[in-house]
């Protein structure tokens, strides 16, 4: 990592995600601030010149759904290794989910995570638990956690089952304009399931998870938002009916947003024929029809955010019987490549539209300042070449875990580096 005194990012194209306009421009950064954007002579610059020809410069990307595993499972990921993975993946900001050990349900744990991330280039924004111990009974000290740096609340990994508790959580958090991120599933229907319920679960003989469970919880939560207010953000939406409910809520003008994970756009339950535990996550891979509905939701704006649900698990935990393996896969180091290759190159979204869902939109939802590549702004920039290809090699991941289904995939989008907090990291 390089502390920036004076550098020039030369030869790239600067993307303006808010206006969808892009222009060829060089960017001079002095002491962490953007000094100049435009055509800049390299000879007369008098600082470090970094050649980024062919690459694009975008306001720093953010992944709002990441499991950093610290505190508790530092063998799988730490704040530091998660930040390294984020940088390698082209991100300058992540939200850390609170299902750690202990849970992130008090300001002490929020502070601990913030402290761990202090010297990192990546902005780490803790998400507090909605309920104490994520047990679903009493709402946690949200105001205290917000003061310490929490940007949203979630019991991710579990839904808030008790409707009265969810009602209170929406009411309470709305005083602070903090979003409630719910993992929408009905645990009674879930009942020990391991894959989406469909013809495929019947053919593979795996205990099924009925997709209607997601729809029921989204529906309940939308009804609560209509009744008491608050901001509902649906984590990792995966079903056609779920997308439809969010679309209707938005048409009604309710403060409801949602995110999709890249794997739900790339795989379906038909890909589970080999019982690959690196394709086991929750929500599970759904049907090809659901995948199409998610793509349509991205296209029409129903889906606000693309977030990886980066869930590190140890090799030992994943190299087991399918029903014994934990849910979750890695995402930070492949998300940008997957989205460029499978969403942008397939013309579902333009590059700017896709990046907007990994930059502006998650920050808006979390009420965070939005970085801009403009003179006078703090430099918060992701640099990558969208056309250049690379091959995924999990052995080279910065993450401490290896549970990725993309090993060996050829992807577009090579990350060149990231700039933030006065630091530059070359990939």
């Amino acid at each position, binding site marked *: 990592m390089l502390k920036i005194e004076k550098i020039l990012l030369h030869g790239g194209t600067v993307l303006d995600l808010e206006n969808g306009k892009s222009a060829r421009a060089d960017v001079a950064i002095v002491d962490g601030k953007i000094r100049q954007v435009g055509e800049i002579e390299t000879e007369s610059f008098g600082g470090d010149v970094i050649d980024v020809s062919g690459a694009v410069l975008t306001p720093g990307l953010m992944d709002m759904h990441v499991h950093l595993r610290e505190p508790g499972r530092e063998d799988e990921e730490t704040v530091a290794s998660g930040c390294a993975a984020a940088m390698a993946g082209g991100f300058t900001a992540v939200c850390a989910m609170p299902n750690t050990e202990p849970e992130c349900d008090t300001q002490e744990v929020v502070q601990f995570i913030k402290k761990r991330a202090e010297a990192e280039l990546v902005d780490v924004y803790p998400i507090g638990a909605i309920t104490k111990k994520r047990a679903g009974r009493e709402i946690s000290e949200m105001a205290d956690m917000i003061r310490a740096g929490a940007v949203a609340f979630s019991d991710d990994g579990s839904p808030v089952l008790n409707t009265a508790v969810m009602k209170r959580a929406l009411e309470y958090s709305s005083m602070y304009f903090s979003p409630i991120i719910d993992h929408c599933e009905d645990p009674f229907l879930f009942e020990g399931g391991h894959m989406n319920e469909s*013809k495929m679960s*019947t053919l*593979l*003989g*795996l205990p099924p998870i009925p997709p209607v469970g997601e729809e029921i919880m989204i529906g309940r939560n939308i009804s609560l938002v209509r009744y008491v207010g608050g901001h509902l953000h649906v984590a990792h939406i995966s079903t056609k009916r779920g997308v439809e409910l969010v679309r209707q809520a938005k048409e009604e003008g309710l403060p409801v947003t949602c995110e999709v994970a890249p794997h739900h756009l790339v795989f379906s339950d038909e890909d589970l024929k080999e019982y690959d535990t690196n394709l086991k996550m929750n929500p599970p891979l759904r049907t090809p029809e659901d995948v199409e509905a998610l793509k349509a939701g991205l296209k029409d704006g129903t889906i606000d955010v693309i977030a990886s649900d980066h869930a590190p698990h140890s090799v030992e935990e994943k*190299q*087991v*019987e399918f029903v*014994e393996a934990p849910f979750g896969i890695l995402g930070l180091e492949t998300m940008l490549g997957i989205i460029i290759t499978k969403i942008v190159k397939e013309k579902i979204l333009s590059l700017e539209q896709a990046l907007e869902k990994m930059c502006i939109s998650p920050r808006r939802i979390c009420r965070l300042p939005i970085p801009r590549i403009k003179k006078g702004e703090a430099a918060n920039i992701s640099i990558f070449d969208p056309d250049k290809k690379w091959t995924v090699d999990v052995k080279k991941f910065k993450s401490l875990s290896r549970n990725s289904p993309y090993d060996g995939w050829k992807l577009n989008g090579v990350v060149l580096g990231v700039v933030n907090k006065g630091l530059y990291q070359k990939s």
Partner: protein
Amino acid sequence: MALSISHLLGLRGVPASDITMILDTATSFKEILSRPIPKVPTLRGTTVVNFFYEPSTRTRISFELAEKRLSADTVNFSKTGSSVKKGETLRDTIRNIAAMKIDMVVVRHSAAGVPLFLTQCVDAAIINAGDGINEHPTQALLDMMTLRAKFGSLKGLKVAIVGDISHSRVAGSNIHGLQTMGAEVRVCGPKTLIPRGQEEICPVSYNLQETIEWADVLNILRIQLERQESGLFPSIREYHAEFGVTRRRLQQAKKDITIMHPGPINRGIELDSDIADSEFSVILDQVTNGVAVRMAVLYLLSGSDAKVDQ
């Protein structure tokens, strides 16, 4: 002549030519079983591990007998419950056993997909003796052998599988195998015990009487008591009344029908005692054929080129 498959993980996707070869081989092995000394040296020097992670009596005995009749060296490994909770992973256990130089593994496990998982862990031929609610291919093969012996061919035969389809690996394998061999299959049971998407795989009926009228063969599955406890049907009494195969129902159909059951039978619940022991039943033939079919599978997957009729 050799099988196109190198493991028997299930019958889904196994071609008819393979199934026919297994059934033909089993038929010639059956003759050996009726000899005064029912043993051949075919698999001498071949080591087979019976790797049973779930309680099993008849399947394990059937495999062990099949191995002994072929003169294979056998080792038994039994353990119940999850390996993960007991400190050693399944992958480590099987790799340790394989390091002792074994040729074949017969595996029974409560988790679907374990036989396939084992093929990724070790270099031995894997035979599925039942994985969770996925498949139990040798059971379906012995069912098909029994039906082929009785009817001459499986083509066009109408087979109904009755009972808890959701939790049955026997149903899964039978449907795939019978459909491949040209039989017509349908399932019948309470809707709470029919899995999602079943109607895309074969016709489904909730009416036992209509099913009996249609079928040449009823393959009746054991109903597990714990399914009632978890609320999937209201009572054993009502199950028997709606889905129990009784003499009265068979008489009402006024036709010959063949009764199969993979065992063990809950007499008086899914099948009346009287019918289980009647002229309709081929249940004990199934058990005898089980040994012959397993001999055939072991032999054909062993890579041995010893002649069958030694």
